[in-house]
């Protein structure tokens, strides 16, 4: 059933979501179908809007930290870091070396956690009946245990502080982290053996949802998605924030920019993240974990503005803050990677089939908490 000169068929408008098993939350796609082909797709966002930016402008600088946990609830550590980075830039706080290392460890563990779950859910969208997801969750559990031991909470860590981190890593938790990192390559091998060469997966993902390089740049796509399209852009390399210039790691870049590339780039990035973690856990210096001049209460940021950005697992996560010198931000703006990456969903989905829209959406790797804020 396709639109040709021979038989005129009617299009069918289907609303995928907000209650749909694989829209990764309350997200809606208004899809116009011709048979099984997508001729039009409109992403509808905002079901999870909760006034994140407005709330932030009403409360103290530090009180915002737990709110950033809830942006991308998979990666609270990197959210914390981006926000802390922006504030530190404005306040001119110097972060002690040990804290920088701890931050790198946390961020890279978050990357492992996010990517493994992202591809797990992508495969689940392909119909692999939750097996890959549960393998990913099994490994994620270790990282979450580690996060809980260190920060007190599994997902809403609220761990970073302006000028450092809240709790130091003791030897026991460092050993825990080393154990996780040591296990990870084996898990990746198992995962890859399970799926990467699976013919069904290849047939489903190769040349599906192609994002051309130019479009990726023009739409300011970042993160693994941009790199899968061949854009060599990684803020860890560009900005060298934190202590990333001390680690030896490579950035994988894809060619075709299709769903399969986005899947593979994530796996390769995890392998690189393991390398970074090994180095960071080996080299972590002793010293204070928070800047001595940093304080929690009555914290004021000098007037001015600042933009702090990091390479979050999903892409560039930025916080643009304006201060009037008071105890609260005057303006607080988030540049969430999944929101920006989601804007070109229609371009990737046109001409594909309904079944493909779901896996293309899965390969974008969105978290609605961040998209809608």
């Amino acid at each position: 059933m396709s639109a040709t000169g021979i038989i005129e068929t009617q299009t069918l408008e289907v609303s995928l979501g907000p209650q749909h098993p694989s829209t990764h939350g309350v997200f809606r796609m208004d899809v116009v179908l011709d048979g099984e082909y997508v001729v039009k797709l409109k992403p509808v966002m905002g079901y999870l809007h909760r006034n994140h930016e407005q709330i932030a402008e009403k409360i103290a600088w530090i009180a915002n930290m737990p709110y950033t946990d809830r942006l991308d609830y998979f990666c609270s550590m990197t959210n914390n870091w981006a926000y802390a980075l922006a504030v530190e830039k404005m306040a001119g706080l110097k972060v002690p070396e040990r804290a920088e290392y701890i931050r790198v460890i946390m961020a890279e563990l978050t990357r492992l956690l996010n990517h493994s779950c992202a591809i797990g859910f992508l495969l689940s969208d392909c119909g692999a009946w939750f097996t890959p997801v549960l393998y990913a969750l099994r490994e994620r559990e270790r990282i979450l245990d580690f996060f809980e031991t260190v920060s007190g909470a599994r997902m809403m860590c609220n761990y970073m502080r302006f000028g450092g981190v809240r709790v130091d890593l003791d030897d026991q938790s460092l050993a825990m982290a080393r154990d996780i990192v040591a296990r990870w390559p084996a898990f990746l091998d198992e995962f890859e053996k399970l799926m990467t060469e699976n013919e069904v997966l290849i047939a489903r993902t190769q040349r599906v949802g192609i994002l051309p390089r130019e479009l990726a740049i023009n739409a300011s796509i970042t993160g693994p998605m941009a790199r899968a399209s061949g854009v060599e852009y990684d803020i860890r390399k560009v900005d060298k924030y934190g202590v990333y210039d001390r680690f030896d790691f490579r950035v994988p870049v894809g060619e075709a920019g299709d769903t399969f590339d986005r899947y593979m780039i994530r796996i390769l990035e995890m392998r690189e993240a393991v390398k970074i973690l090994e180095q960071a856990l080996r080299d972590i210096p002793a010293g204070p974990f928070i800047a001595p001049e940093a304080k929690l209460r009555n914290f004021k940021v000098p007037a001015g503005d600042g933009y702090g950005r990091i390479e979050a697992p999903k892409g560039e996560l930025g916080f643009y803050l304006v201060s009037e010198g008071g105890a609260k931000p005057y303006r607080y703006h988030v540049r969430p990677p999944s929101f920006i990456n989601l804007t070109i969903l229609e371009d990737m989905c046109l001409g594909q089939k309904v079944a493909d829209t779901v896996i293309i959406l899965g390969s974008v790797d969105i978290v609605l908490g961040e998209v809608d804020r």
Partner: protein
Amino acid sequence: MSNLLGKGLIDGLVVTAKNFVGSYFDGNRKDRLFTYQYPEERMKLPENSRTFPFLVYDGTPDQLRCTACKICETECPPQCIYIVMERDANGKPLQRPRVFDIDISVCMQCGICAEVCPFNAIKMDCDFERSKHGRFEDLLVHLPELLKSNEYYHQIKSAEATRVDATRKPTKKPAAGTKPEKI
């Protein structure tokens, strides 16, 4: 594909078979069957873990550390704490709360109240079994329910409690006007 077509499918089957068989010979539970069978077995929570706040008292419940300074009330991100200071017959403030309510349906367990408290009076609990039948009144926790002894604090978080006790030793009960310790 350089290798044989269908190899990927077989490889996947091998992995799932290994996991299937492995789950029966899984000595260390965390390797494969990582779920806890909740009501029968409980997770051992690490010391740092935090759920809802509680108020620490030394000895008897009337010797609570809280001075109703309202720092936690102002710093609380979702504004879920409500404090009214006790006053005597003449209207003189008594440095302890008459009302201390926490709406745990709003509380987001961030632990900032415990961090900012200069008197180590409010701490984070480890008890996650707080479900109630009602949605509103039942989840509004009042002062008597919030009070927990220092012994309880030692019981759930011994290292942290010992550290706190060490810093508190010199001044048993902070006098009015004591500078809050720097954090």
